């Protein structure tokens, strides 16, 4: 941890600046005394820039580079605007745009079904329901408690600490996640490559490098008929490898919806 912090001062500084900027921008709810937004915007932007440069990643082609940054910056910017906008309707809209940016990233990771499903569930249903509630409940302008951010410092602190830990973990021990479809193609190319140039034998003096941690090969492998991004591959993985998790999630959701129906007021009790 310490070593990593010394190696990546830009990432740490960026995170701190970013957090302070967001804290500055949070709506305080006092109509007369709203802070000027510019210092916060500058701080947050500088923080994001430093963080991205420090934690930068290598992507191969220009095309995917441009698309990655477009989607990632859209998602980040819209998420920041979502939590800093004073109007709850605008907040919901920025949330929708942030979801769309994230779905673009899913697309780049060749997970089109995940992207489409996220759009349907979040942008299409959840946020529309938010808008419904906001418009139904507050037709005479936003209520006071909706115009100021709640629990600002703990929220920002915990989320940025979490972000820092995730980035630190990813950078110090990168996971070699086997991505079936891509691995199959890579294996073919490496076998071809190794036929022409065999890997050099390790000299006996050199310390043996620890093998990179590999996720256990319990996942079902993709075949040429069911490549990694396809619905078939996803379905096989969900209902084969992760069946227990899927069923558990389904049960929890069922319990939650039964609970929601149970605690909702009956019509005789004065519901709509």
């Amino acid at each position, binding site marked *: 941890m310490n070593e990593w912090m010394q190696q990546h001062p830009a990432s740490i500084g960026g995170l701190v600046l970013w957090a302070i900027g967001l804290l500055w921008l949070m709506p305080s709810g006092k109509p007369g005394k709203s802070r000027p937004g510019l210092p916060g915007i500058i701080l947050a932007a500088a923080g994001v820039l430093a963080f991205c440069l420090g934690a930068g990643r290598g992507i191969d082609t220009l095309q995917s580079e441009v698309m990655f940054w477009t989607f990632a910056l859209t998602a980040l910017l819209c998420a920041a605007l979502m939590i800093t906008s004073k109007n709850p*309707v605008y907040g919901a*809209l920025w949330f*929708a745009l942030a979801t769309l940016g994230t779905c673009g990233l899913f697309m780049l990771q060749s997970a*089109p*079904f995940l*992207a*489409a*499903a996220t*759009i*349907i569930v979040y*942008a*299409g*249903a959840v946020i*529309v*329901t938010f*808008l*419904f509630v906001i*418009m*139904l409940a507050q*037709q005479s302008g936003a209520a006071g408690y909706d115009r100021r951010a709640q629990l600002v410092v703990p929220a920002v602190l915990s989320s940025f600490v979490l972000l820092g830990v995730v980035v630190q973990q990813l950078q110090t021990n990168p996971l070699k996640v086997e991505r079936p479809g891509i691995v199959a193609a890579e294996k073919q190319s490496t076998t071809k490559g190794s036929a022409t140039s065999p890997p050099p034998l390790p000299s006996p003096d050199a310390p043996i490098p620890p093998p990179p941690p590999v996720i256990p090969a319990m996942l079902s492998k993709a075949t040429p008929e069911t490549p990694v*991004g*396809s*619905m*078939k591959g996803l379905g096989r993985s969900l209902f084969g490898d992760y069946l227990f998790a899927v069923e558990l999630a389904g049960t929890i959701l069922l319990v939650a919806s039964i609970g929601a129906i149970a605690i909702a007021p009956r019509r005789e009790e004065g519901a709509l």
Partner: protein
Amino acid sequence: MPELLITIITIAIVVGAIPGVCNYLILLERKLSAWMQDRVGPNRVGPLGLLQPLADGVKLLLKEEVIPPHVDRVLFLIAPGISVFTALLAFAVVPFGPVGVDGAPGFLRFIIAPGIDIGLVFIFAVGSLAVYGIVLGGWASNNKYSALGALRASAQVVSYEIPLGMSVLGIALMSGTVNLEEIMQQQIAGGFAAWNIWFQPLAALLFFTASLAEANRLPFDLAECEQELVGGWHTEYSALKWALFFLGEYTHMITISFLTSILFLGGWHLPGIAEPDSAYPLAWLVKMLVLMGKAFFFICMMIMLRWTIPRFRFDQLMELAWRVMIPLSLANLLMVMFVRHFELSNWWMLPGSAALFAAWGMISASLREAERRARPGYVRRKKVEAHHDGHAAGHAAAH
């Protein structure tokens, strides 16, 4: 020809054709309604009123654009744009002709984005965004009537998305894909008896009804319900911004009609005329016209439905979605799973659908009767004499 150029040409064709087609669909709507109500309809501009859409278009372009001072300007301006954008984007994965058939000129591909593995899911994803146009337009207008219309639209769309998606899951299970081109190809390869309508008639009905609700067409246009809400969510809109909302609605209609023909009616297949091995000159044109003819049939049906069925009340609208369409589409999905699991013949689904429909009708009728009985002040209907029974019961129901 390079892929990019073909894509650009296809996009240009679609984007160029759809506004014109929408214009003439409005004329068709007016003419059909006139015909149904024994009127003449528009007949002043050009022969048979055929130039009326042009006159309307020029009128909408030149009208004064009113932006009331009390609106939220940004959202007020982008709401019509969202409406058109999502409607056009959904059309990107819809094949509008014989995709991949020999003989068609090289620059015609009949689909903007071919080979999208998640075609159907993509359409639902983009379609679920279409409601933002209405919700934002209604909210930004800062007007009670508009806000009420937007409220109704959001509740309606969220409810009807569920039966819409669930009704086609059966087809996805049957054909093992949600790629629209593949679903169409499988039906075409199987011939007339492989059209999905034979196995999923109930799903076709549910899909068509739910998509009418998604498109805000009557009898589901509670969001613009004129006798209660002036104009609903578009009360404050005028001129071209108003027209853009309707461009979005009619584009949505076109997409739905194509989808229904592709999913349930075998795409461009028509026995004896457009078979996969028909090789007469211009066969591709005939196939394209067959698909468009099917879509045209559904568009006419939507228009005639609009002028036949009165608008629902809001509680009826919600009841239809939650008490009828969602359970029915779930039961339909279960039936498909059952047939697929036990490897029965697909033909079992035809009587199965009919049985589901009948059973649900009976359950609904008895539920309604039970509800009536539970009401305070319920007076038990008089028993009628045995030989008058059927007749009198019919009368009682009519009252």
